[in-house]
Structure formats: C-alpha cells, structure tokens
C-alpha cells in the first residue's frame, strides 16, 4: 500500500455556500463539486485519461472574487483560503454576455445549415446565456479563411473560436503536431504549418480534433449521399460491414444511456435502410487474428531460435490512424508492424472476391460500405494500394455519427426496432472479434488464438484482465507454455510514441505491442457520438463491448465456423500465398524530406 499523504485543505464560500477543497483546486472544480455549474467553452477535462485543456482563453467562466479588482476566469484561478466568490452577479452575467457577443461577432450565423447544428457547444452557450442580439453586426468584419477538405476531415476555420482543444489533442495527447495556433489578433487561428491543407501535414486523420471541436470548424467528410445513391441503384449489390465500437455507442445518438448495446437494432436499421447484405467487421477481425496471430507465432518462433531477422516486437496494424502515424514519424521502423491489413480492408478484399463469387456478382457491381467509429478509415479506404484496377475494396466509410443521421433521415424509429441477426457468412464473429473496439482488445484476441494454437491446449480462462483498463501505457506478461510473452499496450498516439522510441533505441522488452490511435481505443474514435468531455461515457462503452464478448457462444477467432470455412474453401492456410495477396499490405515512408540542392 502506498502511504496516503494528508491533503491540505482550504475553506471558501461560493454563492453563499461554504465548501472545503484540497489546496490547489480551481474555482471551477470547487464550484462543480458543490453542484454549481459555471459555464465553460474552451475548457475541457477528460478525467480518466488525464487530459485537461485550460488555456483560459474564452473568458466565459469569469466569476467575481471578493477583494479582486477584475473578474477571474474560474477554470485557471486557484481557490484561496477564505475566499468569497460569486458566480452570477449582474456584473458577471454582463461580462459573460459581452464575451459571448465578441466571440459571435465574427462567427458565421449559418446554424440552420451547419453540420454541427444541435451538437454545437457554442450554439448551446449562446442559448444558455440568452443571447438575442449581437451588437455592431452591420459593421463587424467577418473572418474569411478558405475551406480545407481532406479525405477525412473538413476544416471550416471561419467557425474556429480559438478554444485550442484541437491543438491540445493534436500536440499534447497525440504528439502528431499537425495543428498549431498561428498568426495573432483577428487573424489568429489553428492551422497546419504554412496554413497548408491538412493533406500536406503530418495529420493521421485520427479525428480527435473533430471529436473535441466545440463548433463546426472541424467536421468529417459526409459520404451518406453516395451511399444512398448506391443503395437505390438496381445494378449494385450493396454490402455493409459495421465495426465493433459502433454498436456500443450508436444508441447515445437516440437518447439511450451510454454503454447501451444496440447490435440487434443496428442490424435491423441497416436492413431497413436497404443494404442488400448486413455483415460484421468483427468477422474480419477474426480473420485478422488468424493472419496476425500466425505472423506473431512465426516471428516469436524465429526469435526463440535466435534468428536475428525475427523482427521483434510485432506491432498491431489494425488502426489506420496509427499506421499513418508511424509512416510519418517512424518510417525507419516500417517493417516492424504486422503486415496484416486492418479488418475494414480485409473485409473489403474478401467481400469483393470470395463473397462476390459466391453470389455471382461482378466486382464492379458490388459496393462495400463500412460503418466505422473512425475518420481515418475514410482515408484508409481511399489508399490506392487497397484498390483493384481503380475499384476500391471498400467504396465508402461512414462514421457512427453519419449513420445516426442517415437513420433519422430515413424516418426509422430506432428505439423501437426489433433485434435482428447479421447475415451469413461474413456476419458471424467470435467474442474475440468484438473486443477489437477496446484498447487492449486486439492483443487479447490475438493472445487467445495464438496461445491455443501454440500450446495446443485450451485456455482455462478467456478474460485477460491484465490487458484491460484505461491507463495510457500498460504491460503484461502472459505465460505461453513456459515462454513468458511480454506484451505492451498503448492508446493515444503520444503513448504509442513512448513505446516506439524504446523500440527505435533497441531497449524495448516487448514481444508484441498493440497500438490504437484514439484514447480508449475505437470506442473513443473520432467518428463516435460526441462525448463533450465526459470520459465516463468511454468507460461505459468499453464495458458494453466486454459484455457482448461474454455473451458470445464462441469467444476465440479460430473457432468461428465461417472463418474455418473461408480458409477451407478459398484461402488455404493463414499466411498462405493467397492470404498474403489479399489480406496483407506494406507501408510507406511519408516523412518530410530534406533534399540538397546541387
């Protein structure tokens, strides 16, 4: 047990009520502890992930501290012993309103057609503060930035309010460094270097900037119209796959409690929308485990024989944000990750070959749509190496949020839908495929299969609690029939960078490392319903995913009967030549190059 330090506490008064807090507590946190909800805009705190953004920039949270001449921003002002604070005097309310009017003065007033409408923190705040007019609009200068559309993310900087949450996610949490505050005064904005398009920056399309943006400045590229067009086209067979994390979050968009599993309703909704076949990315997750798990065993086997080319540790490669990250930042290590494609891409490759043949549909007449918690998946599906003669394995990738919107547009009463089952054969999955949505899930799924294949023994327990949790970097040692397999797990790219730096320096003790780009894994992906800074939502989603795994009759990938059938009928063995051709890929060096002029 760690010795418990006695906390030094102080007493103060907020809105005529006494409160005792730990020394160093901000006024904002002290007030929230008492149930006084001081409004904030730029401030964001993801408690369980130790992520806090408090630039003290927006000044919406100002309060009156007795004895101080100026109003103080509650999010960055620490409580003093004996302080007397008032959070809603006429002076405070007036200041708050004025601040809001200034923020709105150059903000576009196109709420009716803004993609963030209804989910916008700025809109909510204007409503909460009762803003009914913005003085001086007729003479106000509007900011004018050009709109930047990348394969995954749209930046509409006229709507940027300089809260700098995206900058914090991109630099502190993800250490990607694509975005920074640039310029000053009226022209100040968050942008990539030289204000280039995101496409020419080291952006990984993880979408965490989009997930925390309070306004419509950062949104995803919407593909729902193209999907609808494909569905109504009688010459097209439209196949849909849904990622594991979607089922644990989609319900939130329809007013359900975070962590409500909606797998059955999700399938029913997709059928209602008119997809010809509703399949599960979890099937492809099982397939990933067969390929990646086999690669893991081969590489560890070589390592045990003392082979210098064993290439240990093996890194997971399911997460496209993570793949983009190492291509930009660690191109010297591009042979270290598994060559296995991500489940989304494996699904596309199998759907447009094996399944297309089965139902006698030509490749060009099949459209594969994926529902993903992720924005990087949009970019991934457009990578040229994942197409055959210009026809992509996955035609469109839409996010959980886009799907919710799609369902509403189709007048579907989601909450009252019956539970339905995925179609066969690409809709059957094991519990191992489901947990891909959580940090630690991919490696747990791989361990379940690799252990049983390596030792020839059945696992007595399938829940590897040592691989689960929300800590940014975790490690565990699993006994592989006498051989201790060291496993590292990182979620959030900043944490991944720590493990990668060790690998680069030759100091890593791990044999296998799982990385997911987003905090919490796919459940916290950039395409998920917005959590607005409430990290308990992520925990609830993670719990739901483990629930679904527990309730599955089959919980290891290699026992999925349709996976066994796929190898028997089509692929042969895991890592066979055909499997390599369809299910594996290679990586590129995308680091900025300095060329010497002659």
């Amino acid at each position: 047990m760690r010795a418990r330090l006695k906390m030094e506490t102080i007493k103060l008064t907020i809105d005529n009520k006494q409160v005792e807090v730990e020394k160093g507590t901000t006024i904002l946190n002290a007030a929230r502890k008492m149930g006084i909800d001081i409004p904030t805009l730029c401030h964001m705190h993801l408690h369980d992930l130790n992520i806090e953004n408090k630039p003290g920039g927006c000044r919406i949270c100002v309060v009156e501290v007795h004895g101080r001449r100026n109003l103080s921003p509650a999010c960055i002002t620490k409580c003093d012993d004996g302080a007397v604070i008032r959070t809603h005097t006429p002076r405070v309310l007036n200041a708050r309103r004025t601040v809001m009017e200034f923020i709105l003065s150059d903000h576009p007033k196109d709420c009716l057609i803004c993609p963030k409408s209804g989910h916008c923190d700025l809109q909510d705040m204007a409503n909460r503060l009762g803003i009914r007019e913005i003085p001086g609009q007729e003479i106000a200068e509007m900011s004018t930035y050009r709109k930047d559309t990348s394969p995954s993310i749209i930046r509409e900087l006229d709507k940027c309010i300089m809260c700098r949450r995206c900058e914090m996610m991109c630099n502190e949490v993800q250490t990607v460094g694509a975005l920074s505050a640039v310029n000053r005064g009226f022209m100040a904005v968050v942008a990539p270097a030289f204000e280039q398009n995101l496409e020419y920056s080291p952006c990984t399309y993880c979408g965490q900037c989009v997930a925390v943006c309070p306004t419509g400045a950062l949104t995803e590229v919407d593909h729902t119209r193209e999907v609808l067009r494909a569905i109504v086209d009688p010459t097209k067979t439209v196949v849909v796959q849904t990622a594991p994390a979607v089922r644990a979050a989609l319900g939130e968009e329809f007013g359900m409690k975070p962590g409500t599993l909606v797998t059955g309703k999700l399938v029913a909704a997709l059928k209602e929308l008119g997809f010809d076949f509703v399949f599960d990315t979890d099937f492809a997750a099982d397939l990933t485990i067969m390929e990646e798990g086999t690669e893991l065993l081969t590489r560890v086997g070589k390592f045990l024989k003392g082979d210098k080319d064993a290439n240990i540790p093996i890194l997971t490669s399911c997460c496209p944000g993570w793949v983009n990250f190492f291509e930009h930042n660690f191109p010297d290590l591009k042979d270290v990750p598994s060559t296995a494609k991500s489940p989304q891409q494996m699904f596309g490759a199998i759907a447009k070959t094996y399944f297309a043949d089965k139902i006698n549909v030509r490749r060009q007449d099949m459209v594969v749509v994926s529902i993903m918690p992720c924005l990087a998946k949009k970019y991934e599906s457009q990578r040229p190496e994942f197409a055959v003669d210009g026809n992509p394995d996955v035609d469109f990738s839409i996010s959980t949020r886009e799907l919710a919107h799609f369902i509403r547009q189709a007048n579907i009463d989601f909450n009252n839908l019956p539970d339905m089952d995925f179609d066969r054969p690409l809709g059957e999955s094991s519990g191992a495929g489901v947990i891909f949505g959580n940090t630690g899930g991919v490696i747990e799924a791989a361990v379940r299969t690799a252990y049983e294949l390596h030792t020839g023994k059945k696992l007595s327990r399938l829940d590897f609690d040592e691989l689960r949790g929300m800590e940014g970097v975790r490690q565990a040692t699993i006994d592989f029939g006498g051989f201790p397999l060291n496993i590292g797990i990182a979620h959030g790219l900043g944490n991944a960078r720590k493990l990668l730096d060790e690998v680069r320096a030759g100091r890593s003790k791990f044999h296998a490392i799982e990385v997911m780009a987003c905090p919490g894994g796919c459940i916290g992906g950039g395409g998920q319903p917005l959590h607005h800074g409430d990290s308990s939502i992520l925990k609830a989603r993670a719990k739901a995913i483990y629930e679904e795994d527990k309730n599955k009759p089959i919980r290891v990938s290699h026992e999925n009967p349709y996976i066994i059938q796929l190898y028997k009928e089509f692929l042969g063995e895991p890592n066979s030549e055909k499997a390599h051709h369809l299910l594996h890929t290679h990586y590129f060096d995308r680091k900025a190059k300095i060329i010497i002029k002659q």
Partner: protein
Amino acid sequence: MSSIKIELRQQDVDKINEICDSFNNDPVELINVLHKTQEHFGYLPAEVQEVIADKMNIATARVYGVVTFYSFFTMTPKGKHPISICMGTACYVRGAEKVLDEFKKELAIQVGQTTGDGKFSLSSLRCVGACGLAPVVLVGDKTYGRVAPDDVKAILKEYE
C-alpha cells in the same frame, strides 16, 4: 498524400544545424534559434522552418506558429539594410510618423516592402527601449536618435 520535399543548399542546412546545436537543440530555445537564423538568412522561409523543426524535434506547425506570432520574424526577404522606425508612444508623439512618411517617399515603398534593388526594406516597430532618443530609427544594427524628416536623405546616403 505525398511526402513533402524541401530543397536547400548543403551549406544552408549546415548553418541551421550549427545554430540549433549552439542552443543544444533545446525546444525552449526556439525563439533564440529563430533570431539567429533570421540574422543569417535575413528571413525565415518555409524550407528553413522545416529544417529547424526536424533538427530540434518540434512540430513544423509549432515553429510556424511562433514565426507568425512575433512580428519581428518575417517569411519574406528583407532588404540588405532593413530600416525600422519606432512607432512606440514616445517616438510617435515626437514625430515618428513624419519620419516614416519621409522614408516611404524617398524609397517609394510601403511598410513591409523591399525596394526593387533589394537594398532597403521598411518596417515599423513598437519601442526599442531608447525613448530618451525619440524618435528612433534602426538601420540594420545601427541606431539613429532624434531623427527629423530632414535627416532621412543623409541616413540613406550612408548606405549607397
């Protein structure tokens, strides 16, 4: 998405690396590194910022953020003899604006521009801490105090 390619001469890359090394490549020294680099090149083009970012292990966006925040840094080449006129309060009330107008007239350029022959560039700044000498003009490293509009021609002549 294609890789960004930056073209620079070897001696320029060497010089930038040397400057970064002299500050131990410490990210907190970024502003000092940018100062020294601008002193050498006269300005901070995108290519130079990329090299600094790479060498000091800082995001290029961050370097660009600092360059665009401080008005001292510039991404356009300055003249061989950069002229700065102090427009701080003390200089302003003692007639700095008239001095500036005279420079604009003589050089036929506006603030932020460089003469066609690349000899002079014009900028205004806020207070150099020599208020006792107001109005103050800087040409390169040299400081001129109590400058009157009539002095402008003579100052320019020194650099011909």
